[in-house]
């Protein structure tokens, strides 16, 4: 409770209310007011999520901070919120990144500032809702509503090919969502009239139905992750999105897909999950290896990081579908870590893009001569992206590999190649951009990062290193929920 108000509701609605206030500041004459209001809103939005962490009980796998009210009585739909170890950290991550994005867009965004800031604040609230919703229709409403601000962000402030990218992003994700909606309605009828996710997890479902439901969920979540055959929207969306949009896409949006697998697919259709795990593992390995190789060939920095994200998310889905505690906790840690690392890399690219208006690797070279401080930060995040021990990325990747090797040596062998490819494409890009002789005259005119940019990158550095050196606090939060989920997934839900 904050001032007598339930924590999760405040975490959802406070940013949305601030978003509306920011929108009300009107056109760009009041841009500084809009920025200030957005900063206050995002900081408060982050502050109100902290009680989730301080008041969290790590010994139970039950839902905490639960709120339950009637919403649409006719269909037995409730306003039902709560977090467990799996979702709690993502609410914090999301609120944290909203602050980062607001600061990152402070000077960079000059047209329609209020709309830009409002879109991010509203999205922050909606995404919190996605992670905290325990009623599937409430979840669906947040899930779809999330698309609207992102659609606007990419379409208005994006790059030259933004309209194609944003349409593709929206329609791709809508396809998956609509199939999921049918599955949810089917489950509603199967449970005899409940849309509660927790009830869905208990109901017995015949094998054929489980497989169809799994496929419907797969389309919804795999598109968001994104997994191998349905990943093609991501490079387009990432490349065309403004920096803030890319950061939120990478740090938050990709995570809701994997979260969906954990919250819906695995506990609701455990038998189908086991049966189709082979396919999921295969798709994950293809993502890790093939997309890793694709990343190697990119000439555009943003595209490279986008492909690297797909490859890293392959690690996450691999960790989920090997069904052991190492894999699953590793996957969750990898999700958090990838949020920090990919977010930071997109911010770094944004720093360069703001100065040079180019994302092409070939346009750079010798940046270290002009931007030594920046080069140091960039180095750290590049290393983290290649999974260097001591950074957050190592923890998750290592645990997933540990889990995988218990299942099958060759899976682990294939997955481990990412450590090589990851290092190759990231460091090669770093070398070409940062080191070497200054060939482009514009590079010679670069100025190093200012205090605002240092602040953002330093904040992320704390998390990347902190989580790499001492991951225990994160792991503790996950333990109870992950173990419970594994027990749940191991039980067959076929009707007797």
């Amino acid at each position, binding site marked *: 409770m904050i001032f007598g108000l339930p924590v999760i509701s405040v975490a959802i609605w406070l940013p949305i209310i601030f978003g509306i206030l920011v929108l009300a500041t009107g*056109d760009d004459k009041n841009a500084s007011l809009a920025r200030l209001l957005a900063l206050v809103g995002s900081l408060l939005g982050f502050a109100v999520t902290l009680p989730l962490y301080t008041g969290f009980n790590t010994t139970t796998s039950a839902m905490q901070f639960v709120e339950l009210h009637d*919403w*649409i*009585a*006719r*269909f037995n739909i409730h306003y039902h919120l709560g977090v467990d170890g799996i979702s709690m950290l993502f609410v914090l991550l999301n609120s944290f990144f909203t602050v980062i994005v607001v600061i990152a867009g402070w000077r960079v965004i000059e047209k329609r500032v209020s*709309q830009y800031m409002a879109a991010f604040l509203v999205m922050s609230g909606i995404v919190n809702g996605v992670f905290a919703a325990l009623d599937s*229709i409430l979840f*669906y*409403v947040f899930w*779809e*509503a999330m*698309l*609207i601000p992102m*659609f*606007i962000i990419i*379409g*208005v402030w994006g790059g030259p090919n*933004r*309209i194609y990218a*944003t*349409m593709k992003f*929206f*329609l791709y994700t*809508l*396809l998956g969502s*609509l*199939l999921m*909606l*049918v599955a949810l*309605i*089917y489950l*509603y*009828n199967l449970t005899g009239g409940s849309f509660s996710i927790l009830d869905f997890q208990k109901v017995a479902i015949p094998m054929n139905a489980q497989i169809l439901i799994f496929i419907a969920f797969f389309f919804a979540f795999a598109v968001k992750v994104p997994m191998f055959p349905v990943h093609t929207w991501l490079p387009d969306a990432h490349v065309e999105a403004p920096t803030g949009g890319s950061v939120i896409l990478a740090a938050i949006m990709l995570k809701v897909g994997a979260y969906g697998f954990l919250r819906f697919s695995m506990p609701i259709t455990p038998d189908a999950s086991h049966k189709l795990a082979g396919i999921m593992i295969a798709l994950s390995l293809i993502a890790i290896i093939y997309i890793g190789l694709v990343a190697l060939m990119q000439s555009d920095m943003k595209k490279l990081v986008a492909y690297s994200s797909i490859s890293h998310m392959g690690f996450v889905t691999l960790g989920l579908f090997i069904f052991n505690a190492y894999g699953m906790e590793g996957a969750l840690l990898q999700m958090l870590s990838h949020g920090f690392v990919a977010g930071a890399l997109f911010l770094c690219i944004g720093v360069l893009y703001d100065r040079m208006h180019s994302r092409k690797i070939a346009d750079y070279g010798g940046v270290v001569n002009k931007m030594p401080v920046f080069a140091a930060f960039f180095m750290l995040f590049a290393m983290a992206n290649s999974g260097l021990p001591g950074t957050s990325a190592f923890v998750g990747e290592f645990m997933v590999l540990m889990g995988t090797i218990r299942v099958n040596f060759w899976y682990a062998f294939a997955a481990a190649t990412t450590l090589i490819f990851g290092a190759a494409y990231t460091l090669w890009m770093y070398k070409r951009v940062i080191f070497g002789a200054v060939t482009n005259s514009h590079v010679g005119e670069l100025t190093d990062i200012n205090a605002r940019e240092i602040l953002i990158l330093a904040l992320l550095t704390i998390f990347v290193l902190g989580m790499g050196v001492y991951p225990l606090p994160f792991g503790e939060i996950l333990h109870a929920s992950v173990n419970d989920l594994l027990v749940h997934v191991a039980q067959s839900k076929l009707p007797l």
Partner: protein
Amino acid sequence: MNLMANLLPAAAEIFLLVMVCFILIFDLLLKTNKIYTYLFVQLTLLGCSLVTVGTHERGVFYAFNGMFVDDLLSDVLKMLSYLGMSMVLVYSRQYLLLRGLFTGEFLVLALFALLGMNVMISANHFLTLYLGLELLSLSLYAMVALQRDSAIGTEAAMKYFVLGALASGLLLYGMSMIYGATGSLELGVISNAIHQGVQNKALLAFGLVFIVSGLAFKLGVVPFHMWVPDVYHGAPTAMTLLIGSVPKLAAFAFTVRILVEGLQGLSADWTGMLVVLAIASMALGNLSAIAQTNIKRMFAYSTITHMGFMLLGLISGGIEGYGSAMFYTVVYMIMSLGGFGMIMMLSRAGFEADTLSDFKGLNQRSPWLAFMMMLLMLSMAGIPPTVGFYAKFAVLNSVVQAGYTWLAVISVLFSLIGAFYYLRIIKLMYFDTPESHVPIAVESDTGLLMTLNGLGVLLLGLMPGTLMSICAVSVRQSLLLH
């Protein structure tokens, strides 16, 4: 039976008819300024709603020897039709004034159309149904042709009239066959006769085919949709607004009265026909809408799709199905009012904002209107948190409950195609630069109504429970008692 008790169920219609006659005379006395007629009409609509509420009693009442029925379903639909018509008039006023069409005839025809709709909504007899339908249709034909010197308008009126007459003919032919098979024109009696078994099954089946074709014509579903795009496109936008919004309520009532109240015993037959109509409408409507450059034509194809989706509710049957179809129709009316209202707000003297490119960069010209239009488009596409999502959700729920999960999957795939052209409007408004910088003059009354309309779509989306329950309750109280 005493006279008053017999007339009470029809009190609102009688009041409306008397008022229309008064307005006809009153309007003659006014030389130039028709604003008083307009206010008189709005007051009449308010009066109608008071009469409808005042005479409402729980239960089902018949009048005129069972030709006319007053139940909760009819009262709810009538209240909504007054509201819808009132909004139509507010949205149209400025648009018609600028085009010299703001005449007494328009207002009187609109009220006659409303009277026709209400008769349809309350009909319990094939003759009353037909009477209401023709009163509505003839008023609309005349309204489409109101702009005499417009070639495209006259063509639309002609098409509408010829095809409408054909549909009426089909309907009458079907009704006569049903009469031949069951010996009655009253819906309740027909229903009983079918349940008890009819000698001549073939005659009944033929009659059903003709009736469903006639209904399909009036609803504008594929393959009886040809008139829809031309009429929507050709008519002055105010008339398109009228045709595309409120009459859908009457069309819903008309369909439910005939198919559910009258021909429930044949539901196995007509369900199959509606499945074909619904799938064809969703497919053709969505695919054709993508290719349109005129927004009125685009909305026409979108109407075809929406009507197809509404049919899914009727296909599923039961309280869930009919209730969800009714909810869908009401929500569709609210959305289409806003959509066409927006076209008229962007139009000005001598300029029709009816092509897609007229919406380019609306966010830069008027952020508020662009935001309202975005809400309306998202709602039409069925994206939460707008009410359009719950309309689709309720229908899909009834479809899955009835065991047609495959139909639900097909319909969501077509919705995905549909989302594209609604998103394209948002894209034009937000991502493109405007082609013209003429300031948008917004009258205070239309501006307020548009705000209410757009925010209403959002607020109903956050709290859809009440309207859903009203639809379900009125269907339950009215249809099962037969």
